[in-house]
């Protein structure tokens, strides 16, 4: 038996090897495997098709979801013959006809998820679903206009990111602490409009009758539509050109970026700076003071010590004067110390010079005579002598 065992093993082992399989995880049900969405649904549905040909119907449904939930809710069922609307971030509507649909259809990636990374950015950006905003009616309008705002940033629809909202709120609070001119920012969607029955000036008068306030009406990603509502008292006290300039500056800052949170942030900061100057203008209502103030730039004004770092990014000029003052104080202190040292040294040198000076002038000095006994036979001198060598390599020689 032992003799046949190696022969059996030689024939049996390859068979076992070829029969072995790697056990892979399997879905319990086939249906659940199809429902699985790579990336938690973040990727377009069409791109997950495994048969290589995206279903036009599914794609249409998905795109119609992008277009608006209302249509989907009606269950109208978009067909191949109907145009599908795409709404980009800027509100651009792209018409896709059925003939183009085949050309514009997304590439068919393989089942491997890594292939999805090769999608062009433009395509992915187009596919980001943006929910259409409801019109400002009913309860939504009430959240804006029913009561006086308690917060400086009014964004009940959460159109701005949370972090930026907090930053802007923090800045607006800081501004209200520093300035008497408060800023309220209302954020609307780009497609939303203030109802006609709502008069912002009237509301402004009703809400902020006591304190000077400006309400900035901002439309998402459309800074050019921004409106500034000042109180009648303020508007009447200064010429219209001042307010136009303020609005232009704000719009210029807002147009510097594309993202809505950044636009609001920049415009709020610029508005804050402009309001500071507006307050100065209102304080000096004389024509001379106005013209003098108009010549100066707001960036020459110094920010307070507790100004947020957010300001430093957008308006670094207002921190310059503080830095300059600090440098000036350091320079002055250094000069003062150096001057003191020099003065002390000069006085010390003067004292030393006064003590060591070889003064000859003065009254003639007569010495009393001494009776001295001669020495070494010398009639006038006894040989008193002191000498010194001044050879460079020789030490001094003292000899008496």
């Amino acid at each position, binding site marked *: 038996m032992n003799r046949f065992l190696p022969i059996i093993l030689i024939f049996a082992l390859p068979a076992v090897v070829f029969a072995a399989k790697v056990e892979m995880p399997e879905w319990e049900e086939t249906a659940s495997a199809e429902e699985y969405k790579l990336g938690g649904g973040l990727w377009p549905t069409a791109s997950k098709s495994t048969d290589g040909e995206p279903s036009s119907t599914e794609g249409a449904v998905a795109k119609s979801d992008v277009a608006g939930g209302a249509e989907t809710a009606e269950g109208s069922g978009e067909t191949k013959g109907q145009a599908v609307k795409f709404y980009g971030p800027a509100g651009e509507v792209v018409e896709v006809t059925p003939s183009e649909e085949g050309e514009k259809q997304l590439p068919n990636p393989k089942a491997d998820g890594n292939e999805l990374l090769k999608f062009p950015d433009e395509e992915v950006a187009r596919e980001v679903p943006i929910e259409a905003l409801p019109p400002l009616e009913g309860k939504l309008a009430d959240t804006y206009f029913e009561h006086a705002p308690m917060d400086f940033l009014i964004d009940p629809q959460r159109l701005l990111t949370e972090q930026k909202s907090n930053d802007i709120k923090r800045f607006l609070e800081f501004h209200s602490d520093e300035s008497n001119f408060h800023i309220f920012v209302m954020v609307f969607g780009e497609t939303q409009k203030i109802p006609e029955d709502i008069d912002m000036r009237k509301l402004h008068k009703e809400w902020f009758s006591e304190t000077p306030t400006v309400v900035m009406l901002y439309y998402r990603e459309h800074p050019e539509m921004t409106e500034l509502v000042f109180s009648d008292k303020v508007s009447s006290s200064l010429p219209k050109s001042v307010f136009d300039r303020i609005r232009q500056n704000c719009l210029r800052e807002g147009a510097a970026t594309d993202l809505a949170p950044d636009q609001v942030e920049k415009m709020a900061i610029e508005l804050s700076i402009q309001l500071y100057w507006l307050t100065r203008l209102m304080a000096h209502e004389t024509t001379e003071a106005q013209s003098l103030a108009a010549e100066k730039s707001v960036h020459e004004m110094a920010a307070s010590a507790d100004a947020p770092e957010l300001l430093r990014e957008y308006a670094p000029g207002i921190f310059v004067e503080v830095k300059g003052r600090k440098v000036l104080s350091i320079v002055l202190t250094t000069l003062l110390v150096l001057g003191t040292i020099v003065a002390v040294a000069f006085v010390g040198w003067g004292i030393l010079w006064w003590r060591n000076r070889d003064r000859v002038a003065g009254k003639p000095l007569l010495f009393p005579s001494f009776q001295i006994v001669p*020495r070494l036979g*010398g009639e006038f*001198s006894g040989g008193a*002598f002191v000498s010194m060598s001044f050879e460079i390599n020789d030490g001094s020689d003292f000899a*008496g």
Partner: protein
Amino acid sequence: MKCPKCLRPVDHEAESCYSCGYSELEAAQKYGANQVFLNRIHDAAACLRKQDRDELAFALDQLEVRFPQMLFCAYLGALPDDLSMSELGFWLLNHGQVKGAEYARPNENGILLILDMNTKQIGVSLGYFAESLISEEEAYRALLHARPHLLNAEYGEALEKIFFRLAKVLRKRGRKLRKLSHQELQEQSRVLNNKLLDLPHHLTPRVKPEESQEATLRSA
């Protein structure tokens, strides 16, 4: 005090050096017993420029006005090897006659600066009266004060500095003496004269003046 020749200490009233027997007679035998005329600034080495000499002369004029009793003079020369500066100073003060200061400023009030260009040495010889006003330490300090100028070969400035520094010492000394009464001055003079060294009597035979004159004539 020290012997100009051997630099050993000598008694205040010693007629000759206890160690080497040196005295003025030996100096007279060696260098001559006659009187020699000196200028206030005797530049035998010709190392002073005219400007330096004029400035130094002006400084000496000022000093003579300030101290009418004192004699300020300087000798600059290249001394031979066998002539020491201390011997030359001793001999010059005893045999030299500075022009223009014959009677008003005797040599015992003299302060003679000697500059040897060969050995690069400078020294101060003092007469009896001058040595009672200026101590050796003060004289040495005055020399040190001019050392930078001497190293830079600015001999005129160096001599001027030394004279001024010695004048400063004289001024201080005069201020102190003015405060003393006559009795105190006499006491001080007595103290100066009593600075005797407790040394044994000199055993070498004394040289008589007649013998020294004969020796001088013989050498001449």
